[in-house]
């Protein structure tokens, strides 16, 4: 890896190589700035045979793709990271069970995301105006729309223009056709008046340039694509930036803190080389933090100095606060109509080809803010877990569950691809009282104080989860399904996921015009240090029910343009 002279001063030091850091690196380097990209994890390239997991058969893994602590989403998932990292703990405050997913690799969490790419809509930036909760963003859809537009063309996203006010149109690539179970879902949803549209995903169903390939329909974006037909930060943003010669990449470098000078402005970052434990500093005119919402908050809180006694950017006391994740709930059904299927290749693109955006805006409900529905099913590739509870659906057919012998082969084929599932992803209401902070007594193996989480859902999220459960039952039944399992009740918060579990955590360094109630301005620039920026989801004022990656990148691009402009004007 690049080891340039420590004396060199970079124009920009970017911390973190995921969606936000990758975009900032790409845009800033493209503008001719000298960039240091600092990543805590190792180098990664899915086209490297040594690292490839795409198109591998289950028997190439001794555990057949089963999850491990180091790959919680399965042995073939490309993302190296998880809920539980070696030597990097986090702790829980009172009544808290927060789940924190961290990636440790080039490209960060873009190596495992579902590629669902939903623009926030006009309402999503002004939720306070509609329900009086939380706060409005200091920007609106019109500010970010030009960046979504550029992003669509630059990175590529399939979908369809539907003219929906809060799910705006875009420059979409054409959508893949629905699979058979999705047609059943569409039919059922239509009968209930629930709309269904093509999904929006950052997968190239059509060529967008000469450097990236076109999707060959293996359904394995989560394994990272060797022809770069899906979006991950490394393949689409970082590698092209490295080719320009403007970027020094520092992998296995964990940033501990931002170093500030006597004037309170940043002079660089202090890091630990995770391979040999040595420490050092990089010097830069500006610092862009994109380590992920919570890691960026941690770096800021650990950056204490005489000018920044409570941590950098924290004069408002807001760093770490307003932490919020998407809500989630799921349910599945057995579709007798899909028994004894003729088997054909139904892999398609990753995950679902159709979805239902929030369709009850303005309805009188006992919760505020909406959710969307993601559809699962199909004849996927067998991996660890395939064949478990092989003939459990016999209970619905009046036959015995269990047995042994070659008859089980018939059961396997009979029920293959007969499951339909729905996953809901919703918007939660940001709370000041949900936050991460430094644990006063616990450090990680590098000696860096770790985060402690404090988080409780409110009635809004719990009531929303109840609504999700009712909706999923109606939709699955309308599709011809027999519901599986039991409907979770109040004792289980209606199946509401744990905070953090959906891995959409945002809000820890939220943007705003008031320096007493926010950490950055609308460009992600710290109110307290003009040459430090945040380019990850920490700046989100509210999360919407949309997956955050597309908005992280649009905001990071906007921040990058602002940095370039301010440098040209000699303000930075």
């Amino acid at each position, binding site marked *: 890896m690049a080891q340039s002279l420590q004396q060199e001063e970079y124009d920009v030091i970017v911390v973190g190589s995921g969606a936000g850091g990758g975009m900032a690196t790409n845009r800033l380097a493209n503008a001719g700035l000298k960039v240091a990209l600092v990543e805590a994890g190792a180098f990664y390239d899915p086209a490297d045979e040594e690292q490839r997991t795409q198109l591998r058969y289950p028997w190439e893994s001794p555990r057949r793709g089963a999850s491990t602590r180091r790959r919680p989403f399965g042995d073939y998932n490309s993302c190296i990271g998880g809920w539980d990292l070696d030597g990097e703990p986090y702790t829980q405050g009172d009544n808290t069970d927060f789940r924190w997913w961290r990636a440790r690799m080039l490209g960060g969490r873009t190596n495992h995301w579902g590629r669902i790419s939903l623009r926030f809509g006009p309402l999503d930036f002004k939720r306070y105006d509609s329900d009086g909760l939380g706060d409005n963003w200091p920007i609106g859809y019109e500010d970010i729309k030009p960046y979504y537009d550029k992003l669509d063309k630059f990175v590529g996203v399939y979908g369809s223009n539907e003219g929906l006010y809060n799910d705006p149109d875009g420059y979409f*690539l054409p*959508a893949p056709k629905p699979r058979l179970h999705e047609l059943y879902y569409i039919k059922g949803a239509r009968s209930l008046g629930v709309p269904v549209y093509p999904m929006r995903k950052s997968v190239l169903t059509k060529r967008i340039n000469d450097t990236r390939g076109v999707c060959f329909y293996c359904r394995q974006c989560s394994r990272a694509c060797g022809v770069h037909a899906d979006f991950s930060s490394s393949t689409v943003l970082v590698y092209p930036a490295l080719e320009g010669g403007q970027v020094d990449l520092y992998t296995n470098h964990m940033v501990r803190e931002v170093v500030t000078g006597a004037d309170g402005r940043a002079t660089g970052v202090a890091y630990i080389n995770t391979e040999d434990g040595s420490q050092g500093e990089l010097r830069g005119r500006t610092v862009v933090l994109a380590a992920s919402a919570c890691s960026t908050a941690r770096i800021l809180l650990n950056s204490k100095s005489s000018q920044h006694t409570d941590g950098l950017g924290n004069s408002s006391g807001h760093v770490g606060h307003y932490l919020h994740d998407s809500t989630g709930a799921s349910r599945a059904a057995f579709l007798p109509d899909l028994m004894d299927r003729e088997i054909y*290749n139904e892999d398609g693109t990753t995950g679902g080809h159709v979805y239902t955006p929030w369709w009850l805006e303005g309805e009188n409900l006992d919760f505020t803010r909406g959710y969307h529905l993601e559809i699962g099913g199909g004849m996927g590739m067998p991996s660890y877990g395939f064949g478990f509870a092989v003939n459990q659906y016999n209970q619905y057919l009046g036959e015995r569950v269990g047995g042994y012998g*070659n008859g089980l082969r018939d059961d396997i084929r009979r029920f293959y691809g007969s499951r339909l599932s729905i996953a809901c992803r919703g918007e939660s209401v940001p709370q000041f009282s949900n936050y991460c902070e430094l644990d006063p007594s616990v450090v990680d193996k590098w000696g860096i104080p770790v985060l402690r989480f404090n988080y409780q859902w409110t009635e809004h999220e719990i009531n929303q989860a109840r609504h999700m459960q009712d909706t999923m039952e109606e939709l699955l039944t309308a599709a011809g399904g027999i519901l599986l399992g039991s409907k979770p009740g109040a004792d289980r918060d209606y199946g509401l996921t744990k905070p953090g579990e959906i891995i959409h955590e945002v809000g820890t360094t939220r943007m705003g015009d008031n320096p007493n109630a926010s950490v950055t301005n609308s460009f992600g620039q710290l109110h307290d240090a003009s040459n430090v920026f945040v380019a990850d989801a920490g700046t989100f004022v509210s999360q919407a029910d949309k997956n955050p990656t597309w908005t992280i990148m649009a905001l990071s691009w906007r921040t990058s343009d602002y940095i370039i402009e301010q440098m040209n004007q000699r303000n930075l």
Partner: protein
Amino acid sequence: MDRRETLKSLLLGSLGAGVIASTGCATNPSSNRAITWTSLPESYSYGRTEIEKEYDEALFAETYFSEHELLTIAVLCDIILPSDHPNGGALDAGLPEFVEFMVKDRERYKLPVRGGIAWLDTYAIDEFGADFINISEQQRLQICDRIAYQDVDDPELQPGIRFFSFMRDLTLTGYYTTELGFRDLGYQGNTPNVWDGVPQHILDKHGMAYEEEWLEKCVDQSRRDITAEWDDDMNLIS
């Protein structure tokens, strides 16, 4: 077809092929019982980090099961998915080594499998005077008939039912994630292709059809290699 009858006839005809030299004295634990299975690779290369490689190597090197336990697992796997089939059975697909690896990989599996085998032996001794692998095939199947189904209420059998169910899960997942299992299932995917929707005859069979309006939003696969261009109104024009 009466599935249960088919099941039995297939099983009775098959077990002898998997378990060789099963004529040994049932009460003599030293009687040699040979059972053969296809071996799995001892190392794998599939995009691991150094730490992961070390972890897997340590698992391969670890001995957890006794020979008796491994033989019992093999006999059970063979009962669950016998080899008298054109696509082979559990023993042809590398069970029980797969079970052994998974149990070592997942600490929480260790006790249930060890305890399950011990339960099975205790039950076999009580009923037939010898541990599970040293009773006759007919006796083994008698026990399996009692613990292979979920609807059996006998409280005494519940640990066995739970164990057998778990062994069935591991056996089927271990088999269907091999080439033999892929062939048996007829799986068609995991290969580069140009997916263009559900085949027409399958749509017809299910009484489904793609709507014109929806298809207009979908990819024209004949133009997938033409670089995307849009007009200013967000319409794809290439």
